[in-house]
């Protein structure tokens, strides 16, 4: 099909705009990487000062190591809890005898849909009322309910794709409920659980707004970075920031690869 002149102009404009947007969206990676290996003076980059030593000195910074280990503990606990809850809740939602599916769905999605400031505040007030000290436990609860919706959605979709005849066949062959769960349902759900867990991990790794309300004086990595930002920019922070970006991009790419077979892409 021949394209008119106007169409070509529009397409060129869209291309230029798209290119500019991608430059801006990916600038954080480039900027922090450059600032982590070169020194700057009054905004000018001193190109002859290349060094990677800040990637080394980073690991002797105790507050950073502490924040990293807190983040790892929180992410692992939250993902594990959310995965178990998601499977249990999805199995219940698909059970023919289930009642109250609508309120169940509403409750699960609420923390994900509400602004994080509301979720964080609620947890802060709730834990204060319960006499619970703010700390890693409250952060774990916050992250668990935040990522639960994602894990639940993925597990439920996969579960709905399983023909009920498979489960009936399992029972007909004399398998117990437990054996059906262990040998039919869980293997069918395994990759959905893995994808959900990975997405949940990236979300938890990055979560800042809810954490800021319930963390008390325990710092996760984003909270530590936030605190460091207020002091100023150092090459060490830039080295840390570059690593954080690379880790989250890597996690997201793996998750995208896992999700890909599920999505259909029309070719023409």
């Amino acid at each position, binding site marked *: 099909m021949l394209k*008119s002149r106007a169409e070509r102009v*529009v*397409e060129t*404009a*869209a*291309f230029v*705009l*798209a290119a500019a947007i*991608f430059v801006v969206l*990916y*600038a*954080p990676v480039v*900027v922090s990487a450059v*600032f982590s290996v070169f020194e*700057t003076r009054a*905004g*000018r980059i001193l190109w002859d000062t290349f060094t990677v030593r800040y990637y080394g000195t980073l690991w002797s910074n105790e507050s950073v190591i502490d924040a990293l280990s807190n983040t790892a503990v929180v992410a692992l606990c939250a993902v594990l809890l959310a995965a178990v*809850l998601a499977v249990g*809740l999805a199995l*219940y939602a698909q059970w023919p*005898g*289930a*009642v*109250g599916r609508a*309120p*169940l769905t509403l*409750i699960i999605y*609420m923390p994900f849909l*509400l*602004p*994080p*400031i*509301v979720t964080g*505040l*609620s*947890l802060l*007030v*709730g834990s204060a*009322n319960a006499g619970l000290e703010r700390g890693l436990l409250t952060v774990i*609860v916050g992250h*668990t309910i935040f990522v*639960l919706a994602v894990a639940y959605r993925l597990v439920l979709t996969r579960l709905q794709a399983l023909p009920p005849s498979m489960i009936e066949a399992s029972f007909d062959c004399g398998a117990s409920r437990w054996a059906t769960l262990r040998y039919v349902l869980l293997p069918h759900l395994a990759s959905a659980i893995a994808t959900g867990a990975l997405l949940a991990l990236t979300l938890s*790794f*990055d979560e800042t*707004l809810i954490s800021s*309300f319930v963390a008390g004086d325990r710092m996760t990595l*984003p909270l530590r*970075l*936030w605190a460091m*930002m207020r002091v100023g*920019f150092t090459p060490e*922070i830039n080295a840390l920031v570059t690593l954080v*970006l690379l880790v*989250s*991009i890597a*996690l*997201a790419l793996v998750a*995208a690869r896992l999700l890909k077979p599920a999505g259909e*892409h*029309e070719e023409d």
Partner: protein
Amino acid sequence: MTSLGQRWLIFAAVLALPVLVIVVPIGAFLVLSFARTENHQIVYDWNLANYAGFFGNWVYLGTFLGTLWLCFEVVVASLLVGYPLAWFIWRQRGARRYLLLQMAALPLFMSYIVKLYTLRAMLGLNGIVNQILVGIGILAAPSQVFLYNQRAVLITMVVIYLPYVVLPIFLTLERIPRSLLQASVDLGAGGWDTFRRVILPLSLPGTIAGAIFTFVLALGDFITPQMVGGTTGFTIGRVIWSQFGLAFNWPFGAAMAVVLMLVALLLIVAAGYAASRRRV
């Protein structure tokens, strides 16, 4: 067969934990908004003073309305930039389309606080934005207008929340059957007519959904205004946050957050309605 009574019992058992960690805290937060503080103690006596104090004081109400306006600006700017990008990606074929889509989605997973940090470095007096503008001669000297004001909050939020606009728009564009576009061309419509009468109306649900996501996210964000907003970039999120820190008036903060939550819920319901009409 399980009796109805047993089924409700199982329902209660399944729901116990989610209710305890999700519903009970939200309930506690709603109740708190009707309490008051006295000598740093929270007194629960069911009064509306917090709400009256919010709606009756222009400092707070004005900040709230200003925040709604800011979120509206963020949405408009995001759509102006995001729609053409979604359209551009949709026009690509095969592997390239998928790659660009991934590239548009990936920034969602890049650390939020890190994006704030680098954007602040880029917008500052010695930042790359000023260096480029001075370098190509648009500005004579580096300017401070890009950081620590309301405009800085706007720019930063658009960059951070742009993928939330692009993805839903792309998804509705992708659902438009090719045959409809061919029919439009066969009937003699030009590129612009096809866009205006077929593509744009059919992609409207995704556009509305994306706009509402962005609005809700911007509304609840209190770290962006704090980091790049300076003294003029005050938003309701910052005010709420300060009630739980320095000001230490939890009930008042809770009441303002309830108002914010109601606006967000209203919009989420609207988004759900838009999404349910997504079918072509």
